[in-house]
């Protein structure tokens, strides 16, 4: 039944192994490194090597490893590439920010790498045990990172809140897995499919298990009503951590959600569609409506990230319909890529304007940016347009694919809610733009080369890729889910 471990097994998770080992080494090396910038460059080097290994690994797409505990398919390679890139962006944004905020501690970089290796394992997980382990592996470093600005009270509290609710969510995931195991006598995704196909599975137990797993992962990707931690954690955490967390953790969470539900639970879609429908509608509404009264840019972006989780979930609602599932998964991947680019750009601007002591975070403080720093204001305008979904940005293309998938699945009311809430979102995103150009003020930015480069680069990507989105969508649609 179980086969001995071969070299191929290690190749299937080579980048994950490398990144975890690199993080261990970095933790030790950092003890003797005086200038933490060296640690940052070493971490970036590790991520670059990880990308190289991913490229090398891509030749083995189509293999499962460790007795079908993990798989290497197009989907996981696409997600892992995005994760590694987002790790690089996160480190680049943190590079100057940590020093400026007086929290330049070497542990930051190993923690980011540990968290990333957990996320990458999650994208490859083909067994619920691995899903749980990678969930913990990615979450625990994130709890520490959220509280990284200790002894600042806001950061400590954000860390504790994120920790308590994250652990709570972990409890739901574990119990859900226990129920699925009870229903199907296995935790392997292919085993669950087989058990359902042969009629061996206890369906009511399986549906309850799937629902609990949905609750647990819903916490991670911030779906209403499991979003309570998000605004506090995003606001309290150091901005560079929030940028990383809001992009990468969402990516990994949705990767696991998509793989588990589209593959193992696709036969349950009749029971789950109403739940997903309700959750995504609620998430879009609540996220967008609660973002309106926010005056703090970090909190506003936190609610905006909740709203975007709703849009992604909307496209995924019809996962059980095999004809639609493929399109919708490609749309989800494309949107995740678009959101990552836009999100990092927007957080780059936030980081440039933030000053020690939580200053420069009020949206009102962006007044006059258009006159004083026109290029940066133009970048921020592009990001805001992209988050609304207006041309000429990636956000528009991403939303187009999302809505196409929803309409193909015949979920017109859900699409209508999506469009209406996008209109609502224009209200609070454009307020930032109005503040920058129409009001007078005297904002200060910190001239950090890396953060400036990343912000500019993301703005260029947001516009350029939106003009030629075909290749990215092609890649996303080639990123097939499989279990082998």
């Amino acid at each position, binding site marked *: 039944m179980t086969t001995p471990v071969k070299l191929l097994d290690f190749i299937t998770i080579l980048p994950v192994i490398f990144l975890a080992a690199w993080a261990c080494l970095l933790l030790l090396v950092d003890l003797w490194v005086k200038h933490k910038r060296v640690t940052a460059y070493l971490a970036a080097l590790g991520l670059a090597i990880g990308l190289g290994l991913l490229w090398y690994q891509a030749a083995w797409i189509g293999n499962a490893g460790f007795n079908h505990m993990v798989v290497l398919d197009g989907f996981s390679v696409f997600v892992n590439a995005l994760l590694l890139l987002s790790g690089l962006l996160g480190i680049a944004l943190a590079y100057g920010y940590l020093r400026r905020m007086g929290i330049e501690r070497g542990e930051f970089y190993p923690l980011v790498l540990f968290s990333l290796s957990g996320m990458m394992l999650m994208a490859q997980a083909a067994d619920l*045990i691995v899903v*749980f*382990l990678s969930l*913990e592996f990615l979450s*625990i470093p994130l*709890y*520490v990172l959220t*509280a990284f600005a*200790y*002894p600042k*009270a*806001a950061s*400590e*509290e*954000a*860390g*504790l*809140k994120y*920790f*308590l609710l994250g*652990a*709570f969510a*972990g*409890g*739901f995931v*574990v*119990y859900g*897995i*226990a*129920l699925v*195991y*009870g229903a199907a*006598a*296995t*935790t392997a995704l292919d085993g669950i499919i087989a058990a359902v196909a042969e009629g061996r599975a206890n369906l009511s137990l399986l549906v309850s298990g799937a629902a609990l797993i949905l609750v647990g992962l819903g916490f991670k990707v911030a779906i209403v009503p499991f979003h309570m931690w998000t*605004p*506090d954690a995003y*606001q*309290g955490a150091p901005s560079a951590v929030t940028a990383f967390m809001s992009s990468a953790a969402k990516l990994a969470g949705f990767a696991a959600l998509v793989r588990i539900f589209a593959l193992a639970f696709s036969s349950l879609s009749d029971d789950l569609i109403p739940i997903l429908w309700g959750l995504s509608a609620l998430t879009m509404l609540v996220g967008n409506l609660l973002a309106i009264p926010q005056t703090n840019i970090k909190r506003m972006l936190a609610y905006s990230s909740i709203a975007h989780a709703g849009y992604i979930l909307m496209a995924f609602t019809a996962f059980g319909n095999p004809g639609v599932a493929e399109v919708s998964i490609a749309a989800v991947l494309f949107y995740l890529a678009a959101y990552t680019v836009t999100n990092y750009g927007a957080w780059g601007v936030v980081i440039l304007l933030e000053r020690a002591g939580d200053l420069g975070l009020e949206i009102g403080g962006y007044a006059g940016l258009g006159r004083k720093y026109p290029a940066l204001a133009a970048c921020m305008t592009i990001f805001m347009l992209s988050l609304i979904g207006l041309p000429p940005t990636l956000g528009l293309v991403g939303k187009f694919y999302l809505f196409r998938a929803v309409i193909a699945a015949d979920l017109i009311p859900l699409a209508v809610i999506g469009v209406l809430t996008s209109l609502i979102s224009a209200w609070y995103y454009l307020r930032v733009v109005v503040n920058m150009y129409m009001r007078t003020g005297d904002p200060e930015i910190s001239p950090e080369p890396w953060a400036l480069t990343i912000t500019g680069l993301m703005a260029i990507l947001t516009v350029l890729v939106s003009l030629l989105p075909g290749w990215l969508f092609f890649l996303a649609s080639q990123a097939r889910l499989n279990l082998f």
Partner: protein
Amino acid sequence: MVPIEYYLILSVVLFAMGAAGVLARRNALIIFMSIELMLNAANLAFVTFARQYGQLDGQVFVFFVIAAAAAEVAVGLALIVMIFRSKHSIDVDQMSSLRE
């Protein structure tokens, strides 16, 4: 032998107690203990099912859950101690530096 259902009912009760504890209690340490109760309820369910199916998989899963829970305990206790040092309270209702 005690029927399987009894174990499962106990596990569901434990899980519900844990979840209720998280929602109702305000002391960070007690919330944390409630979460541990939820994890152990899942462990009980795993062992029960593993016995029912005559497999070892479920029992091995319990090891992993225990190890992951220990890692969580370490980080959680560290966070709680850190907050206690600066605020002299671990009541989650008093954590209001972050405003709505």
